[in-house]
C-alpha cells in the first residue's frame, strides 16, 4: 500500500466496514454453504475409502454356487494383479441371541490373523498377516480364540446390542445345519465393527423375512467343511492406493474382474469334475456298500428260507409221524377191540364151554344125581331087593338076577327062580347094576369131580385169562390213551409249529419285501445320486465388486443423494451474494460519484478506477470465501454426517478441505461479486468527469401501478405510499431482499419439512396406516394343530384383535418392463433386494399381502389414498398397490402390473401374472401389493397359506410385550414376533440426529436473512439519510422514523416469506425425494406448524435485524444530514 490510490482503497474499506461486512458475510455464507455441502459427499467417500483401506476391504468377492476348492484358490491367486486372496466361509442361519430370534450371517474368522490384530488400535495397526482381508474391528471384548466362541456386530438400529457372554444358538440354516456348522452353540466374546457392514441394513438372505439382522464371526473350524470355501475375497494390486470412487479404481479392478470372469468357466468345469469325482467316489463306495448289503440280505433271506423249509420238513415229518401214530393208534384200538371182541368171544366160548361143561357137569351132576338117585334107588332096590333077594335068595339070590337085570327087568322071564334067579339075578344085577352104577357113579363122580375141577380150573383159567386179558386190555387202553394224548399233543405241537411256520413265513415274506423295498430304495437313491452326479451342472461363479456390498451401495447412494442436493441448494446463496454485491457496490459507486469524477479528472484510467471497486469487492469476496469455506467445510459435512450416523457404522468423518471444490466455491463467489461490481461501476465510469462532479439528480419519484388502484392507494398513509414507491424504485434491492428472504424461508421450511416427513414415516405408517401393532410370523406347516396359539391370540388380555394374513415376496413389473423382459430375458437372475429395482430386467421387489378376511382388513390396515384419505376397498377384481411402488413402477389406477411370486430362496416360482391395480394406497415403509384371497386363489391356483398374523396387542408396556412375545415364541408355529414400538423407538434416534441438519438450515437461513436485511437497511439508511433527517426535523417520533424505514423491510420480508413458503414446498419436495431411499416413502405433507415456524422465524430474523439496525437510525444527525447535498 504505497500509492495514495492504494491508501484510498484501504481506507474506503476501513471507513465503510458495514458495507464491506455485507459482502464479506454473504460471500462467506454462500461459499461456505456451497463448499461445505459439496464437500460432504467427497468427505463421506474419503472416509469410507480410508476405512476400506485400513480394514483391507476386498476389491472383488467371488462366490461359487458349489464352493471353492484349494485348486480354485490357487488359480485365482495366479491371476495377474491379484494381490491377496482370502478364502472364507459364510452361511446364513436363524439364531437365538440372548433369547431373541434373529437372522444372522455367519462369517469365518481367520483366528490367528485376527488375534494378531492390535487390540487397542485395530484400524491403524494392521495385523502381521497381509493375507487377512475384510478385517473386522474389535470394539468390545476380545477375539474368538477357541471353538464355540463368536463375535457379534455392534448394530445400532433395529437390534438390541449384544452383551458379552450372551449365548447364540443357531437353530436352522438354509440347508441342514449340521452340513454347514460343526458347532451350533456359541458364546459372544467380542463385539465388532466391520467395513463389510457399514450400513445398518446387513443384506438379504433367503431365510425368514429375507433380511439379515445380525452378523457374527466364528472360527473357521467351527464350520462343518473348513476345506471347502464358500467365498473368496481378494484385493487388486494398487487398488488401495486410489479412491474406490475414482475411475482409476475401476480401471484397476475391472481387468481383474474380467480376467476372473474369463477363467470362471474353466474353473467351473474343473470344480464340477472335482466334485463329480468326489461324489462319484463317495457314490461308488456307497454302491459297493449297497452291493454288500444286498448280498448279505440275499444270503440272509436264503438262510431264512432254508430254515423255513427245514422247519416245514420237520413239521411234515411230525405230521407223518402223527399220522402213523394215529394209524397205529387206530390199529391198536382196532386190535384191542378185536382182541377184546375175540377175547370176549373166547371168553364167551370158554364160558359157553364152561357153561356147557357146567351144564354137562350139571347134567353129569344131574346124571350123577340120577345115578345117585339110581344108586339110591338101586340101593333102595338093593335094599329092597336084598331082602327080596335075600328073600328071594333067600329066595334066590335074586341079586345076581338083579345084577344082570340092570335096568331090564324082565318080570316075565323070571319066575321065582326065575324070580329068585330073576330076583337074584335082579339083585345081582341090581348089585351089579349098582356096582356098575356105583362104579359109574364113582366114575361119574370122579369124572364130575374132574370135570368140576376141570370146570373150576377152566373157570379159574378163564377168570385168570379174563383178568389177564382185562389187565392187558387196560394196559393196551392205557397205552392207547397215552398214544392218543401224544397224538393230540403232537397235533397241537404241529398246529403251533404250523402257525409258527406260517408266521415265520409271513415274517420272512415281509422281511423279504422290506429288504427288497429297502434295497430298491437304496438302489433308487443310488441311481438318483448317480443321476444327480451325472446331471450335476457346473457351478456358477459370481464375480462381485464392492458395489454389491449393501453397506457400500447404501453409502454411495447416500453420498450421491447429498451431492445432488449440494448442487441445487447453494444456488440461492450465490444469487443472493450477487445481488448483495450488486446493490452494495451500486450504492458505493453512487456515493463516490464525485470521487470517480475527481479521479477521472486527475487522469486515472477507467481500469484503475474500476480496479478500486473490484479490489474492494474482491477483497470482501476472497476474505469471505476463505472464512466461509474454512468453516463450512468443517461444520457442514459433520452436521450432515451426524444425521446419517444412526444408519452407518463407520469411523469419524474426515473433513479435509477439498481444494478443487474450495477453489470452485471461492471462484464462483468472488466471480459473482466481481461481476456484480463491474455491473455497478460500469455506467458511472462511462460518464464524463464533469457530470460525475455534479451531484446526481435524485432518483425521480415515479408512479407505480398500485396508484392506479385508487381506492387502495388513497387508503394508504403517506409513509405506506413512500414504502410502496420505494419498493418499486429500488428493484435490485427488492430483488435481493425478496430472494434472500425467500431463500431464508424456503430453507427453514425445507428443514422443518425434512423433519416432518421423516417423522411422518413412522407416525403415519404406524399411527394411521397400520392399526395393528404386532406382527407374528408363522410356519404354516405347523399351524394346523396349534390350539394354544389360537387360545393365546383369542385371549382378550393379550390381543384385542388379530387377522391371519399371507405375506410373500413378489417381483413387480409394469407393462413396459414386462414386455421388454420378455423380448430380452434377463441374463443374471440375481434377485433385487427389497425395494431395489433389479439390474438387468427392471422389476421391483415387493411384498404381496393377502388378508384372510376382507371385512376385517380395515381394522388392521387403513387402505386409503394419501391425498384425500378416501378409503380403498380390496375386491376380487384387482389389487391395491402401495404408493411408492406405484411411483417407482409408474403405475396408475387401472394399469396392469405383472406379478411373479418368489420362493424362499428368492427365485421366481411362477410366471408373471398380470393384475389390475384398482387403487394406490398410502404407505411409507416397504412396498406392498394387497390381494384378496379370492383373487389369490384364482390367479395363483393355490390356497393362501396363512404365514403371519397381524395383531393388536392389548398390552403396551415394554415388559408386558416382552412377556407376550416370549409366550408366542414358545409356540412351535411362531417364528417371529415384532412390536411396532420397537421399530418406532429405534427410529427416534435417527430423527434426533436430524435435528442438527435442521439447526444448520435454521442458522444458514438466519444468516441469509440477516445479511440481506442488514444490507437492505444499511443501504436504505445510507441513501436516505436526508430523508430520515427531514422527517426527524418534521417531528417524527423515533417509532415513526423506524416504521418509515422498516415498513419497507417488513413488506419485503412478508413478500419473501410468502414466496419462500411456496419455494420451500418445492425445495422440500426436491430434497425429500432426493434423500429418500427406495424402500421408504417419506411423508409428503408439510405440517401446518412448519409453515408457521418458518414464517415466524423469518419474521423474527427481520425483527432482530431491525433491532440491530436501530442505533444506526438513531445516530442519523439531523444537523449533519441537512447541511448539504452529498
Amino acid at each position, binding site marked *: 500500500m504505497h500509492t495514495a490510490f492504494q491508501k484510498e482503497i484501504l481506507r474506503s474499506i476501513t471507513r465503510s466496514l458495514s458495507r464491506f461486512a455485507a459482502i464479506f458475510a454473504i460471500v462467506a455464507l454462500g461459499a461456505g454453504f456451497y463448499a461445505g455441502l459439496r464437500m460432504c459427499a467427497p468427505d463421506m467417500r474419503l472416509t469410507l475409502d480410508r476405512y476400506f483401506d485400513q480394514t483391507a476391504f476386498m476389491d472383488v468377492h467371488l462366490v461359487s454356487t458349489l464352493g471353492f476348492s484349494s485348486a480354485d484358490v490357487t488359480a485365482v491367486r495366479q491371476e495377474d494383479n491379484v494381490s491377496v486372496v482370502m478364502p472364507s466361509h459364510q452361511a446364513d442361519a436363524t439364531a437365538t441371541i440372548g433369547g431373541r430370534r434373529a437372522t444372522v450371517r455367519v462369517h469365518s474368522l481367520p483366528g490367528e490373523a485376527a488375534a494378531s490384530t492390535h487390540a487397542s488400535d485395530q484400524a491403524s495397526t494392521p495385523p502381521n498377516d497381509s493375507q487377512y482381508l475384510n478385517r473386522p474391528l474389535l470394539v468390545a471384548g476380545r477375539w474368538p480364540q477357541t471353538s464355540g466362541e463368536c463375535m457379534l456386530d455392534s448394530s445400532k438400529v433395529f437390534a438390541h446390542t449384544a452383551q458379552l457372554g450372551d449365548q447364540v444358538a443357531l437353530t436352522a440354516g438354509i440347508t441342514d445345519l449340521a452340513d454347514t456348522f460343526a458347532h451350533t452353540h456359541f458364546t459372544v466374546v467380542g463385539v465388532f465393527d466391520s467395513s463389510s457392514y457399514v450400513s445398518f441394513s446387513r443384506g438379504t438372505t433367503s431365510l425368514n423375512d429375507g433380511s439379515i439382522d445380525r452378523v457374527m464371526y466364528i472360527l473357521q473350524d467351527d464350520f462343518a467343511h473348513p476345506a471347502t470355501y464358500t467365498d473368496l475375497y481378494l484385493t487388486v494390486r494398487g487398488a488401495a492406493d486410489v479412491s474406490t470412487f475414482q475411475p482409476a479404481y475401476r480401471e484397476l479392478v475391472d481387468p481383474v474382474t474380467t480376467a476372473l470372469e474369463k477363467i470362471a468357466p474353466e474353473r467351473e468345469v474343473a470344480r464340477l469334475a472335482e466334485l463329480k469325482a468326489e461324489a462319484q467316489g463317495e457314490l461308488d463306495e456307497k454302491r459297493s456298500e449297497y452291493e454288500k448289503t444286498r448280498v448279505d440280505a440275499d444270503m440272509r433271506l436264503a438262510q431264512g428260507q432254508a430254515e423255513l423249509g427245514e422247519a416245514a420238513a420237520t413239521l411234515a415229518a411230525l405230521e407223518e409221524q402223527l399220522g402213523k401214530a394215529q394209524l397205529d393208534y387206530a390199529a391198536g384200538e382196532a386190535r384191542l377191540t378185536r382182541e377184546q371182541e375175540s377175547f370176549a368171544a373166547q371168553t364167551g366160548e370158554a364160558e359157553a364151554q364152561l357153561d356147557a361143561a357146567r351144564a354137562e357137569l350139571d347134567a353129569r351132576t344131574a346124571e350123577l344125581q340120577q345115578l345117585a338117585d339110581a344108586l339110591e334107588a338101586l340101593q333102595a332096590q338093593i335094599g329092597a331087593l336084598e331082602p327080596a333077594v335075600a328073600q328071594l335068595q333067600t329066595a334066590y339070590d335074586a341079586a345076581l338076577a338083579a345084577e344082570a337085570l340092570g335096568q331090564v327087568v324082565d318080570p316075565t322071564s323070571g319066575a321065582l327062580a326065575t324070580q329068585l334067579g330073576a330076583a337074584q339075578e335082579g339083585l345081582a344085577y341090581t348089585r351089579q347094576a349098582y356096582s356098575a352104577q356105583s362104579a359109574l357113579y364113582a366114575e361119574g363122580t370122579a369124572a364130575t369131580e374132574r370135570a368140576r375141577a376141570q370146570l373150576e380150573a377152566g373157570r379159574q383159567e378163564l377168570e385168570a385169562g379174563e383178568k389177564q386179558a382185562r389187565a392187558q386190555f387196560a394196559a393196551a387202553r392205557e397205552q392207547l390213551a397215552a398214544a392218543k394224548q401224544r397224538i393230540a399233543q403232537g397235533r397241537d405241537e404241529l398246529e403251533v409249529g404250523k402257525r409258527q411256520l406260517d408266521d415265520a413265513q409271513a415274517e420272512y415274506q415281509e422281511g423279504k419285501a422290506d429288504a427288497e423295498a429297502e434295497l430298491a430304495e437304496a438302489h433308487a437313491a443310488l441311481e438318483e445320486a448317480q443321476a444327480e452326479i451325472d446331471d450335476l451342472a457346473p457351478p456358477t461363479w459370481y464375480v462381485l465388486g464392492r458395489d454389491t456390498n449393501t453397506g457400500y451401495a447404501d453409502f454411495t447412494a447416500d453420498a450421491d443423494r447429498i451431492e445432488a442436493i449440494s448442487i441445487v441448494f447453494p444456488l440461492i446463496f450465490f444469487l443472493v451474494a450477487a445481488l448483495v454485491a450488486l446493490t452494495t457496490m451500486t450504492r458505493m459507486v453512487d456515493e463516490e460519484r464525485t470521487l470517480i469524477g475527481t479521479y477521472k479528472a486527475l487522469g486515472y484510467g477507467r481500469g484503475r478506477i474500476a480496479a478500486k471497486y473490484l479490489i474492494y469487492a474482491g477483497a470482501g469476496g476472497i476474505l469471505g470465501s476463505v472464512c466461509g469455506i474454512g468453516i463450512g467445510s468443517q461444520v457442514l459435512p459433520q452436521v450432515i454426517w451426524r444425521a446419517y450416523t444412526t444408519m452407518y457404522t463407520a469411523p469419524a468423518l474426515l473433513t479435509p478441505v477439498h481444494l478443487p471444490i474450495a477453489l470452485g466455491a471461492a471462484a464462483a463467489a468472488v466471480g459473482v461479486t466481481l461481476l456484480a461490481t463491474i455491473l455497478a461501476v460500469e455506467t458511472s465510469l462511462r460518464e464524463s468527469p464533469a457530470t460525475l462532479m455534479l451531484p446526481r439528480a435524485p432518483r425521480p419519484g415515479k408512479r407505480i401501478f398500485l396508484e392506479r388502484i385508487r381506492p387502495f392507494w388513497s387508503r394508504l398513509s403517506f409513509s405506506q405510499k413512500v414504502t410502496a414507491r420505494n419498493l418499486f424504485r429500488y428493484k435490485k434491492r427488492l430483488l435481493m431482499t425478496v430472494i434472500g428472504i425467500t431463500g431464508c424461508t424456503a430453507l427453514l421450511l425445507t428443514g422443518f419439512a425434512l423433519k416432518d416427513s421423516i417423522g411422518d414415516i413412522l407416525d403415519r405408517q404406524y399411527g394411521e396406516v397400520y392399526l395393528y401393532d404386532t406382527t407374528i410370523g408363522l410356519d404354516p406347516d405347523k399351524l394346523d394343530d396349534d390350539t394354544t396359539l389360537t387360545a393365546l391370540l383369542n385371549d382378550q388380555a393379550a390381543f384385542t384383535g388379530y387377522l391371519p394374513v399371507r405375506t410373500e415376496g413378489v417381483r413387480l413389473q409394469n407393462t413396459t418392463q414386462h414386455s421388454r423382459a420378455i423380448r430380452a430375458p434377463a441374463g443374471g437372475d440375481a434377485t433385487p433386494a427389497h425395494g431395489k429395482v433389479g439390474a438387468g430386467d427392471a422389476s421391483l421387489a415387493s411384498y404381496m399381502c393377502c388378508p384372510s378376511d376382507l371385512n376385517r382388513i380395515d381394522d388392521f390396515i387403513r387402505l386409503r389414498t394419501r391425498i384425500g384419505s378416501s378409503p380403498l376397498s380390496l375386491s376380487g377384481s384387482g389389487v391395491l398397490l402401495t404408493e411408492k411402488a406405484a411411483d417407482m413402477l409408474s403405475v396408475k389406477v387401472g394399469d396392469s402390473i405383472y406379478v411373479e411370486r418368489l420362493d424362499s430362496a428368492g427365485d421366481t416360482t411362477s410366471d408373471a401374472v398380470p393384475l389390475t391395480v384398482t387403487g394406490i394406497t398410502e404407505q411409507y415403509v416397504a412396498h406392498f401389493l394387497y390381494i384378496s384371497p379370492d383373487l389369490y386363489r384364482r390367479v395363483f391356483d393355490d390356497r393362501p397359506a396363512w404365514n403371519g398374523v397381524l395383531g393388536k396387542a392389548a398390552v403396551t408396556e415394554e415388559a408386558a410385550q416382552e412377556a407376550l412375545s416370549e409366550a408366542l415364541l414358545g409356540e412351535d408355529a411362531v417364528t417371529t414376533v415384532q412390536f411396532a414400538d420397537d421399530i418406532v423407538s429405534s427410529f427416534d434416534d435417527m430423527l434426533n440426529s436430524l435435528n442438527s441438519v435442521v439447526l444448520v438450515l435454521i442458522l444458514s437461513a438466519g444468516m441469509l436473512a440477516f445479511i440481506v436485511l442488514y444490507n437492505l437497511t444499511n443501504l436504505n439508511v445510507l441513501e436516505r439519510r436526508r430523508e430520515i433527517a427531514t*422527517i*426527524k426535523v418534521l417531528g417524527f417520533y423515533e417509532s415513526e422514523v423506524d416504521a418509515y424505514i422498516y415498513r419497507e423491510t417488513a413488506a419485503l420480508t412478508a413478500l419473501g416469506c410468502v414466496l419462500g413458503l411456496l419455494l420451500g414446498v418445492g425445495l422440500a419436495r426436491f430434497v425429500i425425494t432426493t434423500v429418500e431411499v427406495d424402500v421408504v416413502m417419506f411423508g409428503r405433507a408439510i405440517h401446518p406448524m412448519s409453515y408457521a415456524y418458518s414464517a415466524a422465524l423469518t419474521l423474527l430474523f427481520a425483527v432482530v435485524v431491525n433491532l440491530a439496525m436501530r442505533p444506526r437510525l438513531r445516530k442519523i444527525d*439531523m444537523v449533519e444530514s441537512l447541511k448539504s447535498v452529498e
Partner: protein
Amino acid sequence: MTFVRFEDVHKIYRTGEVEIAAVDGVTFDVNRGELAVIVGPSGAGKTTVLNLLGGMDTCTSGTIRLGNDEISAFTPRRLTQYRRFDIGFVFQFYNLVPNLTALENVELATQICREPLDAAETLLEVGLENRMDNFPSQLSGGEQQRVAIARALAKNPRLLLCDEPTGALDSSTGTSILTLLQDTSRRTGHTVIIITHNHALTAMADRIIQMNNGQVVDVRTNPRPARASTIQW
C-alpha cells in the same frame, strides 16, 4: 412582545481534541409576528443558531425560549414534539421526499400534527395548485422550495424557520420565495426567521440579527421593511 429569546447561548462542537465554538454567547430576541433575518458570513454560526432554535440540536449552555417554553431544557422526546407541533422548517435544499408528490410531501407534515391546515389549500396558497401531483424531480427548484414552505406552513407552526431558503435558487425565483414568506408572515401573523449570508435580504426584515464568528455583532429593527418583491441581488 418577545417571542423568541436567546440568552448567552453557547454551542461548542468537540471533534477530538479540537473545540469549536460555533455559537459563542449569543443573545437576541425576536417578537411575535416579526420576520427576522439572521445574516452573516459563512461559518458565522447562523445555521447552528437555527438548529438550536428548531430543536434539532441542543446548546452547550445558555437558555433558549419560545414563548413560555424553555427549549434549551427540553428532553429529546419533548424536542421531537416541539419540532412536530411548533416548528416549520424550510431547508436550503428543500429536503422533499423524492418518492412523494408535492401534495404528499405536504401531507407528510400535516398527518402528524394537531391542527394542520389543509394540504391542498396550502399548496394553492403557495401557487402550486396545478403541480400537486408532481414528484419533486418534476418540479423546478423554486417550486420545490414552495412545496417545502407549504409543508412548513401546513403544520400551522408557531415559528417558521428558513435556512438559506434562496441559497440554491436564482435571483428571481429567490425573490418570489421571499415574497411568499413575507406575505405569509404578514397574512397569518407567523413569526418567521430567515437565515442568509446575503445582506440584500435584510431589507425585507422586521429585525436584522447580524452574526460573525459565532457571536451576534448587531441587532437592529427595521421599522419599514421593504417588500420582498423589490429585493434584487
